[in-house]
């Protein structure tokens, strides 16, 4: 910041600002939350100041995996993470089975992800007459085999109806039980199984139509350049 800008702030600061309080900073021992999920939920309900951050840090990878695997690359992931956790904070008083906190969060993440898919669909519909704008933004370039594989995966998942895509992701990427997955989708076990069966069939068909992808799956980590 230039001298002028700083002096402007200094002029505004007609109080003892931080620079006027020199001396060693005694960084406090932060409130690192210690406790299991039951304690965490109790702390969240009590409005404990460190609980929200601890809650986020503990489960963010779990929630992100749900969002990212259902949605693929999406520039709104940070906002969607926030939305899931805010929804959770708003509803934590209603949580009954504290030991199923992760499953409960999965349900919310699925809800938010599905809403995001619907938003995308509408955007595409709204931009129907602008084909160049209907393509989702390319957030990542296939700079590595892994990213290329991920992009292929999401291209396959994008072709599935929302319900089937969600079922596939929860079962095979999350590896949660059928019952938990059905609950996360807020549907019956029988319905979930039917969706999953359809998703599996679609996935297999799509993979067969992508020889490079199949090879990557079969052989490990390397793409093989298509021979012409």
């Amino acid at each position, binding site marked *: 910041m230039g001298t002028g800008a*700083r002096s*402007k702030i200094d002029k505004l600061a007609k109080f003892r600002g*931080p620079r006027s309080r020199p001396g060693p900073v005694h960084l406090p021992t*932060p409130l690192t939350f210690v406790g299991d999920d039951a304690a965490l939920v109790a702390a969240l309900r009590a409005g404990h100041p460190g609980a929200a951050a601890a809650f986020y*840090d503990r489960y963010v990878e779990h929630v992100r995996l749900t969002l990212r695997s259902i949605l693929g690359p999406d520039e709104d992931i940070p906002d969607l993470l926030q939305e899931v956790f805010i929804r959770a904070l708003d509803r934590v008083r209603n949580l009954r089975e504290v030991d199923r906190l992760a499953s409960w969060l999965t349900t919310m993440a699925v809800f938010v992800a599905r809403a995001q898919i619907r*938003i995308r669909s509408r955007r595409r519909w709204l931009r129907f007459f602008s084909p160049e704008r209907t393509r989702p933004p390319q957030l990542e370039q296939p700079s590595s085999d892994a990213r290329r594989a*991920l992009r292929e995966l999401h291209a396959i998942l994008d072709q599935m109806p929302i319900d089937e895509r969600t079922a596939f992701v929860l079962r095979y990427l999350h590896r949660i039980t059928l019952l938990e997955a059905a609950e996360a989708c807020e549907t019956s076990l029988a319905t979930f199984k039917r969706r999953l069966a359809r998703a599996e069939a679609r996935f297999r068909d799509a993979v067969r139509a992508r020889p490079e992808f199949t090879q990557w*799956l079969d052989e490990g980590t390397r793409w093989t350049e298509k021979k012409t």
Partner: protein
Amino acid sequence: MDRKEDLEATGDRFRDLILRDPRAHDEIRRGRAVFLEEVERRNASSGLPRGAARQRRRWLPIVVSASVAAGVAAFFVVTRPVTFQIGEARPGQVGSVIEATDGRTVPVSFSEGSTLSLHDGGRIRVLSLKRGDTRVLVEDGVVDASIAHRGGAPTRWQFEVGAYHVTVNGTRFRMAFHGADDRSLRVSTEEGSVTVSGGCLEAAKTVSAGEILEASCPAREVPAPDDVPAAEAALAPTPDLAAKAMRTERWRELLAAGRLLEGLRAAERANFDQVCRTATAKELLALADAGRFFGPSKRAVAALVALRARFPGSAVAGTAAFTLGRIVFEKEHDYSQAASWFETYLREQPSGPLMGDAFGRLMEARLRAGDTLRARTTAEQYLGRFPAGPYSAEARGILGR
């Protein structure tokens, strides 16, 4: 790939790829920042709206076709009280402001099947929802209306658009009203007809399908909200005092309604320094948000500085210190000053919800300020407390691990 085991193995590999995605760290950190900021905002200003960041996120663009609206209007609806919702799920309240921002179109769906689509920049209020008689105030912008006929029952819709009255006889039409500019009205009807009266029109005019009506009144006929002081001066017996009172209350009302930018502008017109001396802590935070989001940042700085001076030792004062650190870090690039503010936050709110972020930003600010020694110390402290925290990668980088 025909066996479930193959699918499970495939899923495992992709799960690992997603977890090891190099952008994960950044997404998690950004998500953490907006989440904790929202938590802080809620704690500090529960009475005020959630702010632009939150509003941005879930306003949904929807176009509801007339056929859908007509389909929804089943006969049994006639016997129920009419309600409406904004977007997909937010219940509407009579009298509340409905705005479309961030380039989105906001749908307003009525339980009897009618829909309004509010285009970007538009602002309306539903004034009355009596059975068979609905009144809507269009303050600004473009509104597409699709009015449902409820099983042949008479439906009366009236729109108050500036000085004009638009009475609905038909089903689909568009209104464009520029309240803040030339106060012009443009009505185009796709189906049926509407009747426009008032304003500068000598007589009511019917606009039938395919027709367009354009009308414009001189500004003196209906003062715009921004011109309220001038209008009051012309009408009130004690013009100066009345206009001043209006200005004084205007920014407060706008902030309370969540109209941050307009609130900020109204506060500037009403003497920003004076506003900072009288505003509540919540209002000062709202003004600071407005300054940060819409600029200039000096307004945000002034509001936050005033907040710290007037509410020393409070949680919001700590939040103000953190936000000041962000402003000088991100906008002024004065990393030493930013580090001082983050230290201030940590000193004042050692267990505050922004503590982890303040710690990480302090580390980063010290590094950028060239204070490598203290940056390393902070990095060690950070890793000791948050070995897997969102700034842990940077901390390890500073320490060369």
